[in-house]
């Protein structure tokens, strides 16, 4: 099985994740879509690692997983804080950056 299939699948998953970030309004679901994109990246990394016979790609994928975990932790902490302060859990309602 040549890895082109894996790469195309990875691209497709990435695009789906990007679309989800733009469409959904709940911060929780947006974080989930971010996870999608990260995993798609991981898949691509591992495919290339297999194609080049190089295990360093797998190390890279592990580190990506660590980073994703940290990011999830902080993001969920934010969502909990928002919920505690009775803010609406809707990304569109947070417009303070408006110029």
């Amino acid at each position, binding site marked *: 099985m040549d890895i082109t299939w894996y790469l195309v699948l990875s691209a497709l998953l990435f695009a789906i994740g990007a679309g989800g970030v733009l469409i959904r309004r709940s911060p929780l679901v947006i974080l989930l879509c971010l996870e999608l994109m990260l995993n798609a990246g991981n898949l691509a990394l591992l495919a290339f690692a297999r194609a080049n016979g190089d295990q360093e790609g797998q190390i890279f994928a592990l580190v990506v*997983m660590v980073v994703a975990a940290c990011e999830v932790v902080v993001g*969920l902490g934010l969502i909990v804080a928002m919920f505690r302060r009775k803010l609406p859990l809707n990304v569109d309602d947070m417009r303070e950056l408006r110029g």
Partner: protein
Amino acid sequence: MEEVAFFIGAIGALGGAIAVIALRNPFYSVLALVVHLVALAGLFLMLHAEFVAAAQIVVYAGAVMVLYVFVAAYVGGVEEPIWEPIPGQRFLAPLLAIALFVELSIAILGTALTSLESEGPVIQDGFGAPAAIGELMLEKFLIVFEASSLLLLVAAVGAIVLAARRQGEPG
């Protein structure tokens, strides 16, 4: 045989992904993502990345997603309104996603990378095994290893600070 396994894994992953972005209830989205992650773990196995696949199941699907489940249960369902305040977003978003996919595909398929066409080099035994990964981690990538540990520590502290109960707030 290999192709069949690949397609099963691919369909599982794709199905999970689409379910994540399509389902209204965020709890269902979380579960869909778990399915997706498990399917991906299968695909990883086919790529001779055993350790990573194991980590995916145990850490990602096992710990991170559990965290998501807890928070989804705590926060509860969010009714997303129908009306889209940003003009053009509903139209442009799918368009851009498709454009992105098309570009990446062109890049992948049109590339002259020869290695993509072949099976890949013959790999030795123990490729992707925990021993090999461990050896790399602790020898060549030691600093990376330590840095990621530090990052995890910082994230944990940050999460505690963020979610700490302030004075006069309901739990």
